[in-house]
């Protein structure tokens, strides 16, 4: 990086505790001028924004919210590495803004004391001053700033107050290149001496790169921490010294790790003494009274249940009209393009490949936006932590925490917003486990598959005196199957891949406040946009690939050629018939049916159709013939595609979206026989086998792409696809073989 560029652009890192309004400050600083990326190798999102101040361009890096800079994982190391300029992918920062909650200064200043030790020019944004004032907390900002040795800017980011002042101060401090004047000397002398010694040992070592003092300190403090595992890789010889140093500190009465918290909180108390005064009597605040109700055994549970019902209903049903609208718009676009383009490969590519692919992306937007509207409101008002608090006991049994509840619940509507919502889970292993099992929840895309097969093959019988209906029970059974398998998989994953440790549930319960419409709106647009930009292209690409596999080589069999000839004959008859005559309509119907059969003939002999033949032996134990195998392969982009593929294969046409078409397809399925025999393919066992397969399989490219995006790599989506496909196969086989014994 040349000096010229660094003189033009000032780089600033934004850090702070969760629930301090850090994101709101970031949005207020940068507005829409932000972009999102990834740091290679970790699952942390890289959020960058820009603003201009007095002609200086400032780039802001929003670091993940954290209570402390003591990294326990590569994800948590990102913030430290960015600020210490140790990442090749991120240029050094000129200053740090630490956002603190003015109503909760004690705990917030803990992080500030760590940031100060990094030796960077620092500004503290004293946010939520209004909340502090309402609680009778009086803060002498100048005095506090003097004691900490940094500039303090009071802000109310939700109302946009103090932002201009923050920008001006930031540019000034960043340009000055003066680190926070007085490095917080919070540790006792014994400890500092040990750090000095270790630091010298690193300086004498053969290693060419300088190890920052802050990391040496962390090395001493965090036994078995992430810093130890990385630094010791090149300095294994220092291990005995490290152990000895920790031993000496314990003997001197300043044992690690406790010495850090004790020393820092002592410093915080000294800094706050006299600079912050609280009203003498602590009145029960409105927030406390609300909390009494919302965490109450009866009222709290009731409120939670109603709220979850509302969210589920919203994602499941309210998205319906918007999705219908999108469907309608797509159909209109397809019709328009079909009329515009001559029939042939290009038309098919554009209509069945590109438009269908784009449709497969935007169709998810209503659900994503609605879910993130609710998540935005719940997080911003402080209820999200209560939801986790209420549900934790239940989720712990599955090896997860209360934070997994809302993502799992949303996955019943659609796994994509559900997986995107796992960002509320602060612990990496919990988050990954939730992502791994979320696609097992029966989402709305499975409904068409269930509806088709249950309607056709499961008897509409009532049992238990007419209370229960076998069809309904089968449907409920599919939902239950997904839940049970998810519980088992989660437990197995927690015990194996994720090391069996239940992460701590040490969670702040923030005070309630009114959600800021700007923050909520921003969140909805941000998540929707991120999905379209970063998942969209891949989803379209896969849809086009599957289209190609179904389209090419586009040959016709002898039978197909006869169909084409008959169609041509009918066309010419139609041309000579009076369009108003009854025969004309009849002829049109016949042509349409022939069209369906011709497309069916082509697809049966497409590469994918042939693949269906090839893999048929593999799916025999599931009771499937090559047609079902082919439809299952073709449904890789999305489960519900299996219905339209079956429609094409059985010559009913691909648009199985009204009752009449559905009945026709169901009839075709009932009449289908194995090639060269009269034996029916379908029956209850095969129907169950297909349903179980689709309940458990990962046939949804959008889900896999979103998992890739959320975990920043192909490893986890590959794992999900692998384990779900194996489970689906085995489950379907068991369903078929067992039910065959009874039917």
């Amino acid at each position, binding site marked *: 990086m040349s000096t010229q560029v660094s003189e033009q652009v000032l780089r600033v890192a934004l850090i702070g505790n969760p629930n301090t309004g850090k994101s709101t400050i970031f949005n207020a600083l940068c507005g829409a001028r932000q972009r999102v990326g990834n740091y290679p190798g970790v699952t942390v999102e890289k959020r960058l924004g820009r603003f201009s101040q007095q002609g200086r361009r400032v780039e802001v890096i929003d670091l993940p919210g954290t209570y402390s800079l003591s990294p326990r994982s590569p994800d948590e190391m990102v913030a430290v590495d960015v600020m210490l300029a140790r990442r090749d992918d991120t240029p050094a920062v000129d200053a740090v803004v630490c956002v603190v909650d003015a109503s909760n200064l*004690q705990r917030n200043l803990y992080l500030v004391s760590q940031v100060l030790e990094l030796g960077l020019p620092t500004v503290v944004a004293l946010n939520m001053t209004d909340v502090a004032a309402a609680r009778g907390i009086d803060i002498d900002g100048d005095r506090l700033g003097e004691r900490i040795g940094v500039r303090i800017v009071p802000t109310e980011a939700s109302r946009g107050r103090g932002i201009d002042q923050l920008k001006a101060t930031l540019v000034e401090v960043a340009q000055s290149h003066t680190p926070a004047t007085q490095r917080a000397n919070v540790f006792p002398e014994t400890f500092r001496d040990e750090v000095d010694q270790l630091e010298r040992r690193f300086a004498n070592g053969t290693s060419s790169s300088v190890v920052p003092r802050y990391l040496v300190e962390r090395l001493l403090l965090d*036994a078995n921490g992430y810093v130890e595992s990385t630094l010791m890789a090149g300095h294994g010889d220092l291990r005995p010294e490290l152990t000895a140093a920790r031993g000496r500190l314990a003997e001197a009465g300043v044992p690690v790790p406790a010495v850090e918290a004790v020393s820092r909180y002592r410093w915080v108390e000294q800094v706050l003494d006299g600079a912050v005064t609280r009203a003498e009597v602590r009145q029960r605040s409105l927030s406390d009274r609300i909390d009494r109700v919302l965490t109450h055994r009866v009222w709290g549970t009731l409120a939670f249940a109603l709220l979850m019902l509302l969210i589920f209903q919203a994602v499941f049903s309210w998205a319906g009209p918007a999705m219908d609208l999108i469907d309608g718009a797509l159909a209109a676009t397809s019709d328009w393009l079909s009329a515009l383009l001559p029939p042939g490969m290009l038309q098919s590519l554009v209509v069945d490949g590109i438009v269908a692919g784009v449709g497969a992306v935007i169709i998810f937007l209503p659900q994503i936006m609605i879910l993130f509207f609710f998540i935005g409101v719940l997080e911003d008002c402080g209820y999200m932590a209560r939801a986790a608090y209420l549900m934790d006991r239940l989720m712990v049994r599955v090896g997860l925490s209360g934070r997994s509840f809302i993502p799992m619940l949303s996955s019943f509507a659609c796994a994509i917003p559900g997986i995107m919502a796992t960002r509320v889970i602060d612990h990496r292993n919990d988050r990954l486990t939730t992502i791994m099992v979320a696609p097992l929840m029966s989402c709305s895309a499975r409904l068409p598959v269930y509806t088709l097969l249950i309607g056709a093959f499961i008897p509409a019988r009532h049992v238990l005196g007419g209370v229960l209906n076998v069809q309904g029970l089968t449907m409920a059974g599919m939902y239950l199957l997904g839940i049970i398998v998810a519980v088992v998989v989660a437990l197995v994953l927690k015990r194996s891949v994720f090391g069996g440790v239940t992460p701590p549930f040490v969670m702040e319960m923030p005070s309630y406040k009114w959600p800021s419409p700007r923050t909520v709106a921003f969140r909805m647009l941000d998540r929707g946009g991120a999905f379209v930009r970063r998942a969209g292209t891949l989803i379209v690409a896969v849809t086009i690939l599957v289209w190609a596999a179904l389209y090419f080589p586009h040959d016709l069999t002898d039978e197909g050629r006869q169909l084409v000839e008959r169609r041509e004959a009918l066309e010419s008859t139609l041309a000579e018939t009076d369009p108003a005559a009854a025969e004309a309509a009849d002829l049109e119907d016949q042509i349409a049916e022939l069209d369906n059969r011709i497309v069916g003939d082509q697809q049966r002999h497409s590469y994918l159709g042939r693949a269906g033949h090839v893999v048929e032996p593999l799916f025999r134990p599931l009771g499937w013939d090559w047609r079902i195998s082919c439809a299952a392969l073709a449904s890789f982009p999305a489960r519900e595609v299996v219905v339209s593929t079956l429609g094409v294969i059985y010559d009913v046409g691909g648009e199985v979206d009204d009752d009449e078409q559905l009945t026709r397809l169901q009839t075709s399925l009932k009449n289908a026989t194995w090639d060269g025999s009269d034996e029916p393919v379908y029956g209850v066992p095969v129907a169950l086998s297909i349903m179980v397969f689709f309940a458990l399989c990962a046939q949804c490219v959008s889900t896999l792409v979103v998992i890739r995006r959320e975990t920043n790599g192909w490893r986890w989506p590959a794992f999900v696809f692998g384990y779900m496909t194996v489970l689906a196969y085995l489950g379907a086989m068991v369903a078929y073989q067992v039910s065959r014994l009874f039917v």
Partner: protein
Amino acid sequence: MTALAMLKVGESGRVVEIAGGDETSVRLLEMGLTPGVVVERVGTAPLGDPLEFQLRGYRLSLRRSEADLVTVEPC
């Protein structure tokens, strides 16, 4: 001397020490549960766990198993 988890709703205790040196105890320390600080138990989740506490002017929720690591003396 008793465990933090044993405090009844409305009772307060002064932290004496935190057992163990693993991730959980470090998290508790970082969140402000240092020796000498006064903690009030303010509630219980409807299912009986986790518990809710007030300290250093904010609310913190801990599972019973975590609150068991913290020794407090009555105050």
